C-alpha cells in the first residue's frame, strides 16, 4: 500500500534571498537580482550576453559551514549544506552533535537507516575543476614567464608580457581535496554525513531537470515504504573566475541577448524573450516525510506530494523535440500517478526558461493538456536559470503557493506569446493542485504533482 508523502521543511539559498521566508516574500514582491557579468570575464571572450543573476555575498559560517569544512568543499556543496540545514531545522527536527568535537549531527526522532538524501546538480563541482585546472595549467608557465619578463625581456615587450601574465591568473594552490570537491555526488554525500543519514544517498545529474527528478525519486521511495524521510532538492554553482561556464551557455546562444533594459530583459513566455538569464546558482532543499511519521512528531505540513513521472525525448542533446510529445506523455503520466485529470490542476509552475524554443513548445503542451484556465508562471523569470537547482526551487514555489493560496507573477510578461492564464498579479486564489515541470539538455522531462494539505 502506498504511503502519503508530505513536505515538512524547506531551505533556500538563492539570488533573491537566503532562507525560505525571505525567498518567498521576495518571490511575491517580484524581486529579481540582475547585474552586469563580472568585468574580468570579458577579458577572455567576446560575449553575446552580458548580464546575470548573482547570489548575494554569503558567509559560509552563516550557513552553518565551518572554515575547516569550507576548505574541503566546492561552493555547490556549501550551498546545499546551508539549504539542507535550514530545511531539517525548519521541519522541526532537533539536532544533536554526532560525537565529541564533531560538526555533524544526529537528527532526533528519526531512524537514520530510513532517512535518505536525494539531490540534483547539473555540473556538480565544476568550479573546483576549473579553479584547480587553471592552477595546474598556468602556475609553472606563469612562473617562467614572470621570471623572463622581469629579468630578460626587452623593455618594449614588458607591457605585453604583463597583459599576458594578468590573463594567466590562477588561485593560490592546487587543493589536495580536489577530487572529493569536484565529484558530482559531493553535495549529497556531505548532506548525508552532516545529518548521519545512512539510507540511500543519491545524486541526480540530469541538467535542468535534476532538482525535479531528485524530489520525484525521494517521493517515490517514501511512498513505496523504503524510507521515512528524504532530504531532496538541488544545488548548483555556475560561477568561475574566467567565465568559462557562462561562455559555454553563451556560445550555445541560449542566454538572454537583448538586454537594452537589463531589469526587464529576462522575460519567459513574452513575445520579445531572447534567451534565459544565467544565474550564479543556489540551492533549494525540501524535507519529504511519510505522513504518519510527520503526524507522530507533530510536524507542520507545507503541502502533499501526490505524483511524479519522467520521460526522455530521445531526440537532441540541446533542443526539445518539436511538438513536445514526450513532455505531454510525461505530464499525463504524472497526473495518472496522482490519480487526477488535467481539469483538477489549478497551477502549473512551468520550466519557462525564456528561450524561443522552450517557451513555444511548453506553452503549446500546457494549452493542449490543461486548456487556458490553469494558472501558469515561471520562477526563472525571478531567479534566472539555476540549472540543476531550478526544479527544486520550482517544487518549493509550488508547495508554498498551495500552502498560501497565492503565487508570484510571471515577471516582465508585457506581451504574452499566447493566451494562457499567466500569473500577472499576486492575489489570493483557490489553489488545490499544482504541477511543477522541468526539461533538460539531453532530453530529460520530469514533473511532480502536489496538493494543498488539509
Amino acid at each position: 500500500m502506498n504511503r502519503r508523502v508530505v513536505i515538512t521543511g524547506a531551505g533556500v539559498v538563492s539570488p533573491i534571498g537566503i532562507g525560505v521566508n525571505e525567498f518567498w516574500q521576495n518571490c511575491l514582491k517580484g524581486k529579481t537580482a540582475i547585474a552586469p557579468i563580472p568585468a574580468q570575464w570579458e577579458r577572455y571572450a567576446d560575449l553575446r550576453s552580458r548580464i546575470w543573476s548573482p547570489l548575494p555575498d554569503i558567509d559560509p559560517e552563516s550557513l552553518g559551514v565551518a572554515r575547516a569544512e569550507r576548505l574541503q568543499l566546492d561552493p555547490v556543496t556549501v550551498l546545499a549544506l546551508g539549504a539542507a540545514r535550514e530545511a531539517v531545522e525548519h521541519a522541526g527536527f532537533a539536532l544533536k552533535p554526532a560525537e565529541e568535537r564533531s560538526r555533524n549531527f544526529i537528527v532526533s526522532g528519526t531512524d537514520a537507516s530510513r532517512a535518505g538524501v536525494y539531490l540534483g546538480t547539473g555540473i556538480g563541482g565544476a568550479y573546483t575543476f576549473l579553479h584547480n585546472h587553471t592552477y595546474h595549467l598556468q602556475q609553472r608557465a606563469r612562473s617562467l614567464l614572470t621570471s623572463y619578463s622581469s629579468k630578460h625581456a626587452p623593455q618594449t615587450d614588458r607591457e605585453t608580457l604583463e597583459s599576458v601574465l594578468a590573463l594567466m591568473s590562477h588561485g593560490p594552490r592546487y587543493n589536495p581535496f580536489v577530487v572529493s570537491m569536484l565529484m558530482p555526488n559531493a553535495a549529497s554525500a556531505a548532506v548525508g554525513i552532516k545529518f548521519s543519514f545512512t539510507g540511500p544517498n543519491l545524486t541526480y545529474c540530469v541538467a535542468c531537470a535534476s532538482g525535479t527528478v531528485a524530489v520525484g525519486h525521494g517521493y517515490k521511495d517514501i511512498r513505496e515504504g523504503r524510507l521515512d524521510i528524504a532530504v531532496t532538492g538541488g544545488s548548483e554553482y555556475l560561477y568561475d573566475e574566467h567565465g568559462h561556464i557562462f561562455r559555454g551557455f553563451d556560445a550555445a546562444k541560449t542566454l538572454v541577448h537583448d538586454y537594452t533594459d537589463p531589469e526587464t530583459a529576462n522575460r519567459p513566455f513574452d513575445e520579445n524573450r531572447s534567451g534565459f538569464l544565467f544565474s550564479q546558482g543556489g540551492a533549494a532543499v525540501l524535507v519529504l516525510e511519510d505522513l504518519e511519521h510527520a503526524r507522530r512528531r507533530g510536524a507542520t505540513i507545507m503541502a502533499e506530494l501526490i505524483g511524479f513521472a519522467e520521460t526522455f525525448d530521445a531526440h537532441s542533446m540541446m533542443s526539445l523535440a518539436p511538438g513536445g510529445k514526450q513532455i505531454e506523455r510525461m505530464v499525463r503520466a504524472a497526473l495518472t500517478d496522482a490519480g487526477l485529470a488535467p481539469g483538477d490542476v489549478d497551477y502549473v509552475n512551468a520550466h519557462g526558461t525564456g528561450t524561443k524554443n522552450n517557451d513555444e513548445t511548453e506553452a503549446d503542451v500546457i494549452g493542449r493538456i490543461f486548456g487556458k484556465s490553469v494558472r501558469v508562471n515561471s520562477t526563472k523569470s525571478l531567479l534566472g536559470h539555476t540549472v540543476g537547482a531550478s526544479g527544486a526551487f520550482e517544487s518549493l514555489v509550488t508547495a508554498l503557493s498551495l500552502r498560501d493560496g497565492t503565487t508570484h507573477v510571471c515577471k516582465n510578461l508585457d506581451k504574452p506569446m499566447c493566451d494562457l492564464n499567466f500569473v500577472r498579479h499576486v492575489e489570493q486564489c483557490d489553489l488545490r493542485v499544482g504541477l511543477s515541470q522541468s526539461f533538460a539538455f539531453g532530453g530529460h522531462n520530469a514533473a511532480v504533482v502536489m496538493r494543498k494539505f488539509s
Partner: protein
Amino acid sequence: MNVNAQQRVIKVIADILNRKESEIDLEATLRDDLQASSLDRMTLYIALEDEFQRSMPAEEVTELRTVKAIVDFIDKKLQETSSA
C-alpha cells in the same frame, strides 16, 4: 618568537580541529594529543596558507609533529619574507 603569529596558529588549529584555543598546548602533538587525522593535517595546511598568505610546501607542513613545530615553521616563513 612572534607572539601574534603564535596566537594566530593556535586559533587556526583550534578552528580546524573544532577545539577550544585553551586546549591547544604548544608541546602537544597533532596526531596523538590532538587526534588530528591526515585529512585534518591537510586541511590545516590549506588554512595556514590562507591565514598567512604564504605558499608553503604541503609535504613539509603536513609532517610537522607538534604545535610548536608549526609555530616555528610559520615564524621562519614570516622572517624569510620580511627579510627578502
